[in-house]
């Protein structure tokens, strides 16, 4: 047995290569086929023309007589860029998502900090309390806010009863309702990476800074904040990117004055049945989100790197 180590290794290597292929192959192929490839099709259809047929778009390549012709229709993109509605929906989405992300950060940071400073047993309980709501239906939790925020809803009734306001506030279908919805739904996504980062923070660094005469706000700005940068980045990306394309929250809590692009895409597809324009909306959204997705990807790759 010891006489043919080379051959033995050869077999082992082939077997290992097969095993490796068996491990990485299925998820890789699945995601390539069902996640990556579809984007090419979206791109293709965004360059087609709408038609009343099934499927409701034209082919890019066409045989006419003996000529193969490729028609790329850029009109969908031109339409998006020239129409006030789409441009303002994009800008609105970016602005609302950005503000909501900052709000999430401001609320989640102190929460994550307090939890990270707790004794380990208690930390788990509080983390569980934070995550628990996201395990119940997202749709139903957003729906709950309708009952609270509407004109004759609980919040207005309470404020009226307390005498703080004379007439009900119009909160539902306003931008404030959007912020409440997004912060409510995405707070855990901000909090978890912040917590994961803050919990690793070495107490001795804080003590050193204090011993060297730093005041508490100086310790925060010059030691804690820079050290938790990667957690802040990850949390912000986890909130910002999906918030830009959010559909349920603007649909249920938003109004006509604060259209977001996810809802526009939905309406373009389901109400207008214009698949090429819906595809163009998606492609432009993807382009806008490319940089944030890359940032998150870099962070994630570092976090999950084999050690």
């Amino acid at each position, binding site marked *: 047995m010891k006489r043919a180590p080379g051959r033995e290794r050869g077999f082992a290597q082939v077997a290992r290569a097969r095993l490796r292929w068996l491990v990485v192959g299925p*998820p890789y192929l699945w995601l390539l086929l069902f996640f990556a490839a579809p984007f090419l099709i979206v791109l293709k259809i965004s360059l087609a023309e709408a038609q009343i047929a099934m499927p409701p778009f034209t082919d890019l390549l066409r045989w006419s007589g003996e000529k193969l012709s490729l028609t790329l229709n850029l009109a969908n993109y031109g339409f998006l860029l020239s129409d006030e509605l789409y441009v303002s929906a994009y800008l609105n989405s970016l602005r609302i998502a950005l503000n909501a992300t900052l709000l999430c950060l401001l609320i989640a940071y102190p929460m994550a900090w307090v939890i990270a400073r707790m004794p380990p047993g208690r930390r788990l309980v509080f983390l569980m309390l934070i995550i628990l709501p996201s395990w119940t239906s997202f749709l139903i939790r957003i729906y709950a806010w309708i009952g609270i925020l509407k004109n004759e809803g609980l919040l207005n009734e309470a404020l009226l009863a307390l005498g703080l306001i004379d007439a009900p506030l119009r909160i539902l279908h306003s931008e404030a309702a959007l912020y409440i919805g997004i912060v409510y739904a995405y707070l855990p996504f901000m909090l978890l990476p912040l917590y994961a980062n803050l919990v690793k923070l070495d107490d001795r660094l804080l003590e050193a800074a204090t011993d060297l005469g730093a005041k508490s706000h100086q310790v925060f700005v010059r030691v804690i904040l820079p050290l938790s940068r990667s957690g802040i980045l990850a949390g912000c990306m986890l909130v910002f990117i999906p918030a830009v394309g959010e559909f349920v929250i603007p649909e249920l809590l938003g109004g006509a004055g604060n259209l977001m692009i996810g809802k526009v895409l939905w309406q373009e597809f389901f109400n207008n049945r214009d698949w090429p324009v819906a595809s163009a909306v998606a492609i432009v959204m993807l382009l806008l989100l490319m940089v944030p997705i890359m940032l998150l990807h870099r962070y994630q790759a570092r976090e999950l790197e084999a050690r």
Partner: protein
Amino acid sequence: MSGRGGAALPRLMLWSGLIFLYAPMVILVVYSFNESRLVTVWGGFSTRWYRALVEDQQMMNAAWRSLQIAFFSATAATLLGTLAGIVMARWGRFRGRTLFSGLITAPLVMPDVIIGLSLLLLFVSLSRWIGWPETRGMLTIWIAHVTFCSAYVAVVISSRLRDFDRSLEEAAMDLGADRLRTFLWVTLPLIAPALIAGWLLAFTLSLDDLVIASFVSGPASTTLPMQVFSSVRLGVTPKINALATLLIALVGIAVLLAGWVLHREQQRARVARSASGD
């Protein structure tokens, strides 16, 4: 131990944050027992909305369909996601790694409308080119859910694999087990809690998905979220409160069970550690 963490303001923020997270759910639960249809009027205790919910045949059919899809999606996503998680956590560099980790990261944040639209267009194109899938329905929803759920499972599994003790695996290998056997008999049992957590996460994500399913479903495959959405769009219906309460109760029980199991395991680990004189 409290030290700087004892600052009053952050603590106040924590508790207000928790109230913010839980108040809407508490309100749903309370009003699910309200006799009155109005949100702000308390008409007395009643279970009539639960009866109405159970008698709503469409809702029940949709719920059953969603549970089936969630079960099969979670199972397939756990398989694929575990493989992907192993690759992410344990393999060093290999060709195609950047693309692979991109394929894991992107579905986590990609807006649902984009995933839904792109998968629908894929299915439509495929059925024109190769005649499959013939119709859209539970199968296409299943494919869509497996796709995004496996990314979540991969993250759960790889972060578990990343911070666990490899000495047991090394011991098994030293004792002559090959990689496959080590994985099946040592690694897999050790990451079992993460597998269960990943499966449950995938199950709830699938059960919860409205947008992607709306794009890729066919006429006869309305899922529970789609059914809820269409009734919610028409206004507040107390039936949905009853449904929400049932879901919250279900999740609550599952989490209590999981917490109990986890707690017991920790206790056992602590005992084992102190016994080994660590």
